[in-house]
């Protein structure tokens, strides 16, 4: 059975079990390994992707649920907000082991797409679903502020 949707801007049809979580469909069938497996229960955020611009956990969303919709993974991030987030992540040297960081970047980008001047409370709200066992949280927070500032400066 196949499911058609837009993956990273490209019309895509994946021939797979429609009950398969989107995470495994993008990783093992579409061949996009940037989205990670951390918990399988939407508890850690390592699998965060964008569905029609919203940050969602792909480990619990069935492939069939994205039919006809827009899915963006870390490999397809090209917006100004995304570039600002990734530049800030490098500037502040955020990652340690790096495994959760695709999900962190996806959540941070989704936040900044909607809120160009997030407060610390906004950041807590948007990012507390993304676990980092290396606890890079202080740098993630600082990097989101840096990215927000750079978006503002270039606007």
């Amino acid at each position: 059975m196949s499911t058609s949707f837009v993956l990273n801007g490209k019309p895509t049809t994946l021939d797979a079990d429609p009950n398969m979580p989107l995470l495994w469909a993008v990783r093992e069938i579409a061949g996009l390994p940037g989205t990670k497996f951390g918990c399988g229960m939407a508890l850690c955020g390592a699998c965060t992707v964008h569905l029609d611009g919203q940050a969602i956990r792909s480990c619990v969303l069935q492939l069939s649920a994205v039919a006809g919709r827009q899915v963006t993974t870390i490999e397809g991030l090209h917006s100004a907000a995304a570039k600002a987030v990734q530049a800030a992540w490098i500037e502040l040297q955020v990652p340690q082991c790096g495994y959760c960081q695709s999900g962190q970047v996806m959540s941070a980008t989704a936040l900044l797409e909607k809120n160009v001047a997030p407060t610390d409370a906004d950041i807590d709200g948007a990012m507390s679903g993304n676990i980092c066992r290396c606890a890079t949280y202080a740098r993630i927070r600082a990097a989101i502020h840096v990215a927000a500032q750079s978006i503002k400066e270039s606007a």
Partner: protein
Amino acid sequence: MISDSPAPGQPTRRVFLKRAGGVSALALTIGFEWAGPARRAAAAMASSPGTVFAPNAFLRIAADDSVTVIAKHLEMGQGAYTGIATIVAEELDADWSRVRVESAPADAKRYGNLALGNIQGTGGSSAMANSWTQLREAGGKARAMLLSAAAKGWHVPVAELTVAKGVVYHAASKREATFGSLVKTAMSLPVPETVALKDPKDFKLIGRRPPRVDVAAKVDGSAQFTLDVVMPGMLVALLKRPSQFGATVKSFDATAAGAIPGVVKVVQVPRGVAVIAKSFWAAKQGRDVLRVEWDDTHAEKRSSADLMSEYRQLAEQPGMPARKEGDAAQAIRSAAHTVSASYEFPYLAHAPMEPLDAVVKLSADSCEIWAGDQFQTIDQANAAKIAGLDPQKVSIHTLFAGGSFGRRANPGSDYIVEAVSIAKAFGADGTPIKLQWTREDDIHGGLYRPMYFHKLTAGLSDKNELTGWKHVIVGQSIMAGTAFAAMIKDGIDATSVEGAATIAYAIPNIAVDLSTTQTGVPVLWWRVVGSSHTTFAVEAFIDEVAHAARADPFEFRRRLLEHEPRMKAVLELAAEKAGWSSVPLPHGKGRGIAVAEAFKTYVAQVAEVSVDASGRVKIDRVVCAVDCGTPINPDIITAQMEGGIGFGLGAVRYGAITLKDGRIEQSNFNNYRVLRMNEMPKVEVHIMPSTLPPTGVGEPGVAPVGPAVANAIFAASGKRIRVLPFANGGDA
């Protein structure tokens, strides 16, 4: 102090990035190529004769000026690749933008950890300490050979040459040559026996903040972890394990599992029954319906509450002496006042973000392994044994590990052995098989930080001087029953008592006793090992003693550390930066202090907390001072302190693995909670300047944060935390 501002003439990172043109340019400049065609090209270049200068096991310089540093240590987030490359590049005077890092093959002879004996492995916060002299010499000798090559070509004395950023200069004749152009000549020269190392004042990378070699690939999803390994024909295996440690397979019925589309084979292995499929999802569905009957004859069936009550009783009986100075019992008997408290610590899972995984390609005469491998030569030997091959026939490709915190360094190589046993049961036909653990497998999988019970008693004189200290520790040994058991001396596993037996305070009568228990629950070192519990017990208890002595907790510690200058200095620095004596806190807030030495690194922390009327605790701020000898990369040291603090906070607040009738009660991040963004305090890190040899920073930052917070909660609320995690209550 190490200044946060750049050295004179050095651009800040931000400026550097802007000049380099942002993200994509940086990715190019760093040139860190891990996977894909780029990596294959690099490997091919390394093997094509005549173009690459490889004067030792740790670096290669190619004709295109690229410098490849070979890392014998695992990169699991702690910054080892960057640290290793920094040491080599410093003495080589390489251009940092042309330095890349490649992982070393398993080989104890060339790549052994000099701190751990004759094994290749990463642990004990030893990567920088054991590499320091070795890699400085490797870089320095290569530099000397490149200089000789230039001198030979230009017919000038070596003394007239200078080097900077990968280019050799002869000022008098205005000639210059890049490293790459000297490769051919350098290759024909002898490797010098000795080399003069740089004076630290001439360091250009060490002590600065060169960007990490792995960061660019870790922000765009291109960094390759074991999870991401894909090979033609590769299958994915999930293993069904018993729910009680020590249970074994009695029988299984694979009918339903075999009917799932994509499931290829179901095989029994020593640890359980594996479902091997064409995809993770098929293997997962197959495992969900796999029926296994277990033989629990030899299984551990006790509950952790039963174990803890046994431990409490054991603490009243004599143990083995881990340290004995003077007569602690007599000092306590004759004391004007005594103080006593006990502390309880649960089992803890490491829960790295990347669940354990390994890819194995096993055939009749060879075994290839891809993993975030932390104990390469131990894993190689264990894999060889299962495969029935010579260790030399087992090759290991070490990839980035998505965290470890000790989990991937285990003497029994559990996940590697499982993967090899599955490949063997499949037929050892060369099919690559990826063993993937789920988060539930990880939480249920054992190899926890052991559960411990600590009982402490102190005696104070009528002048409130600390005269006697008795500390009893009860819990499992990490090394017993493993290849490391030979390191247990006189019944004392040092990893059970480090931080307690090594207590630095000047106390005339000290007794530290250990009762080693045995359970069926497999245990392992967990970030900062013994000090993950001993530092809490010592630093929470010394705080109680200071309170009983009506002394300021900082001043009380300081007076007992006169003979420990490095420990005293970090304690004073943390107190000063936190405003311990100078900035009062409002009602409902409190400060706590703690200090530790772990793996020869000294760390002190001051925590500030708020406790509201209902007893809810918020950790507002942690000020950290660290002395790790020569700071190789202050930004990475800071990151490790920040991360260690967050990791430790999650554990003291929520972390507990509990057993009910031998079954683990937790399963995933909903009931094995870890720290999240909204709970991360502000962290300030201050690094002691030093020219002593470097020590490690991956683990020590974890040790003092728990007791600093517990002591702060007491200061704010009068409530002592004696049972961890404190979200479950606190008072013993």
